[in-house]
C-alpha cells in the first residue's frame, strides 16, 4: 500500500517540507508484460542522439534526455472493457464498515460520472467516442451508449433534466435526456469557442450553485508560458454567453465541485512533469474570489516551488497556495463533496478525490480514492486513503477517474482502465 508509506500525501499548506521524499524510488521496470515480439534486429542508435532542444508545447517538454526517465510514458487504457469476472473488486480495500462492489461492468473507458434526477448514471469517455447511460433495472444494470462520434467526450454535467457533454472543443446539451435514453434528442450546441489542442484538451465540466457552467482549458503542454486562452477555468451562462475567466494559472484540472457550506469552488490541478520523481505534488485548490486569483502555473508549483525555468524573478507568495497537496504526479482527477447521509457523520462535507495514478514516477503513486476532511475553520484537516488496492507491485489493476455521490448516499467510482464503475456503501 504505497499510500501509507507516502509522506508526500498530507494536508500540507504552503511551507510544507519539500524534502518529503517518497521511499522506494528505486529503478523499476515499466509494466509491459512480455517483451515486444521481434525487437531483436540491431537497434538504430537513436538513444545516442545528440541532445536536441525539445520543442516547447510538447507534453514531453522538460524530460531528461536519457536514463530511467526515458522509460516513463503515459499509460493508455485499453478500448475493450474487462469482463465482470476479471474486475479487481476482491483486491480493493475500504475502511471498516464500508463495502465495495461492482456497480457496472462493460463501460469501456468510463471517465466522468453524473447522475440524472431519475437515477440514471451517465459516464463520459476520453479514448473512445461515446457517452454511456446506466439504468438500474432492479437486479441488473443496463449499460447503453446514448451518444457517439464525439471527440474525447470526457466532461458531463446534469441540470434540470438536460445532460451537458463536453468534447475536446465543443459543449453540447441533450434536453430531457432521461425520457429519451432509447432515442436521444439531437443535441444543442452550447459553446465551442475553445482551443483544439489535444494536450490537456479533454474536459471536466460542472454547473455551479450559481447556475453557471464551468469549463476549464488546460495548458497546451507540460510546461510553457500559456497563451491567454489557456491554463484557466472559465464560467458562462448555460447558453454559452457571458464567458469570463474565473481562475488563471491552472495547469490542468479534471475535477471540481462546490463546498456545500461556503459555495466556493474546490478543484484539483495536475502538477508539471519531469522536474523530479518527488515534486511537484498535485494540488487541491479553492477559488475564493472568482476572477482575481492566479494559482501559479507556470511560475510556481505546489505553492512552494518556483519553476526551474519560469520561476526566476517570481515568488510563490505572489500566487494562491493550494489548500492541500495530493502527492507527486498522482493525477488527482475527479472530486466531490460528500453530501449524502449514508456514510458516518465524520464524512459529511468531506471531499472524495480520485487519484488516477502516476505515470511520471518510477515508483507509482496514487491509483486510489482519498478522503479529504475539513476542520471547523474550513481548512483541510486530513487527507487519508479511502479506496485502495488498485496498485499492486508497481502495476495498476485499475485506475480511478471520477467519484459520484449517488442519490442513495453511496459513492460511485469510475475506472477507465477496466471500463467499470464500483459502488461503495456503508453498512455498519
Amino acid at each position, binding site marked *: 500500500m504505497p499510500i501509507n508509506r507516502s509522506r508526500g500525501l498530507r494536508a500540507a499548506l504552503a511551507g510544507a517540507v519539500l524534502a518529503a521524499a517518497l521511499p522506494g524510488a528505486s529503478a523499476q521496470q*515499466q*509494466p*509491459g*508484460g512480455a517483451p*515486444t*515480439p*521481434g*525487437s*531483436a*534486429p540491431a*537497434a*538504430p*542508435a*537513436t*538513444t*545516442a*542522439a*545528440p*541532445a*536536441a*532542444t*525539445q*520543442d516547447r*508545447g*510538447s*507534453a*514531453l517538454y522538460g*524530460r531528461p*534526455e536519457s536514463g530511467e526517465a*526515458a522509460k*516513463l*510514458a*503515459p*499509460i*493508455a487504457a*485499453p*478500448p*475493450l472493457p474487462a469482463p465482470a469476472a476479471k474486475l479487481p473488486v476482491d483486491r480493493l480495500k475500504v475502511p471498516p464498515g464500508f463495502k465495495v462492489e461492482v456497480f457496472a461492468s462493460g463501460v469501456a473507458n468510463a471517465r466522468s460520472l453524473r447522475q440524472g434526477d431519475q437515477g440514471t448514471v451517465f459516464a463520459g469517455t476520453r*479514448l*473512445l*467516442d461515446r457517452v454511456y447511460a446506466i439504468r438500474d433495472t432492479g437486479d441488473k444494470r443496463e449499460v447503453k451508449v446514448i451518444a*457517439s*462520434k464525439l*471527440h*474525447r467526450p470526457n466532461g458531463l454535467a446534469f441540470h434540470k433534466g438536460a445532460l451537458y457533454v463536453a468534447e475536446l472543443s465543443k459543449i453540447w446539451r441533450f434536453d430531457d435526456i432521461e425520457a429519451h435514453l432509447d432515442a436521444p434528442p439531437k443535441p444543442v450546441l452550447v459553446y465551442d469557442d475553445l482551443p*483544439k*489542442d*489535444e*494536450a490537456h*484538451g*479533454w474536459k471536466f465540466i460542472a454547473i455551479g450553485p450559481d447556475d453557471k457552467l464551468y469549463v476549464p482549458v488546460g495548458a497546451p*503542454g507540460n510546461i510553457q508560458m500559456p497563451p491567454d486562452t489557456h491554463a484557466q477555468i472559465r464560467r458562462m451562462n448555460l447558453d454559452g454567453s457571458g464567458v469570463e475567466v474565473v481562475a488563471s494559472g491552472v495547469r490542468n484540472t479534471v475535477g471540481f465541485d462546490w463546498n456545500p457550506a461556503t459555495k466556493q469552488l474546490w478543484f484539483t490541478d495536475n502538477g508539471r512533469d519531469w522536474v523530479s520523481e518527488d515534486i511537484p505534488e498535485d494540488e487541491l485548490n479553492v477559488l475564493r474570489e472568482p476572477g482575481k486569483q492566479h494559482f501559479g502555473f507556470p511560475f510556481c508549483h505546489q505553492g512552494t516551488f518556483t519553476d526551474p525555468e519560469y520561476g526566476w524573478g517570481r515568488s510563490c507568495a505572489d500566487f494562491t497556495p493550494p489548500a492541500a497537496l495530493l502527492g507527486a504526479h498522482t493525477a488527482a482527477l475527479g472530486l466531490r463533496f460528500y453530501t449524502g447521509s449514508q456514510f458516518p457523520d465524520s464524512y459529511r462535507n468531506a471531499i472524495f478525490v480520485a487519484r488516477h495514478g502516476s505515470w511520471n514516477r518510477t515508483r507509482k503513486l496514487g491509483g486510489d480514492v482519498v478522503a479529504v476532511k475539513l476542520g471547523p475553520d474550513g481548512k483541510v484537516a486530513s487527507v487519508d486513503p479511502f479506496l485502495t488496492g488498485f496498485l499492486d507491485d508497481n502495476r495498476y489493476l485499475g485506475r480511478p477517474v471520477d467519484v459520484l455521490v449517488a442519490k442513495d448516499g453511496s459513492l460511485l467510482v469510475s475506472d477507465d482502465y477496466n471500463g467499470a464503475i464500483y459502488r461503495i456503501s456503508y453498512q455498519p
Partner: protein
Amino acid sequence: MRRFLLALALMAGAAAPAPAEPLGERLAPCLACHGADGRSATPDVPSLGGQPADYLITQLYQFRENQRTAPPMNEMAAGLSDDDLRAFADEIAKLPPPRPEGAGPETALVQRARALVGRHQCNSCHGADLAGRDAIPRIRGQREDYLLKALAGYKSNARPGYDPAMNEVAQGLSEADIRDLAAFLSRS
C-alpha cells in the same frame, strides 16, 4: 494469384469472414494486403510484423467503431466481436518484424532524423529501439509511404490517435521533418 484475388475481394468491400471459419482462414484476407511474412508489399498499407497485440487491438477497435477511417479496414472490422479483436490481435502479433526497406539510411539523413527523434522524444513511448510496446506501435522498419501518411494524418488531426500523444507531437513537425523521419524509420 490467390493473394491478388483476395485483395480484389477486399477492394470490392467484402465483409469480415464468418466466425465459423478457423482463425487462419479468417486472417488470410488481412495478410493478403499486410503481408503473410509481416512485411507489406502493398502501397500505403502498413506492415504488421512485430506490432504489439495491444496496439493491434486499439486499431482494430477504432476501425470497427469508425474512430479511425481507413478503407477498407472499417468495413473489414465491422462485424468483429470483442473476442475476435483479441484473437486477431494475438495472432497477428506473432508475425515476425519486417526487415528495413532498401539500404541503410545515408549519414546526413541519420543525423537529421536522430536530432528529430531526440527533440520530439520518440523514444519515450516507442522505446529505445523504436520497436514499440503495449499500445504503442513499432515504427522502425515500417513502410515509408505509410509513415508519411500516418504522420501527416496526426499533424492535420485527420487521424485522431487513440491516445492524443501523437497528435500533440506531430504539431511540431514540418513536412521536411516528416519526410526525414519516414525515410529514416523505414530504413532502420
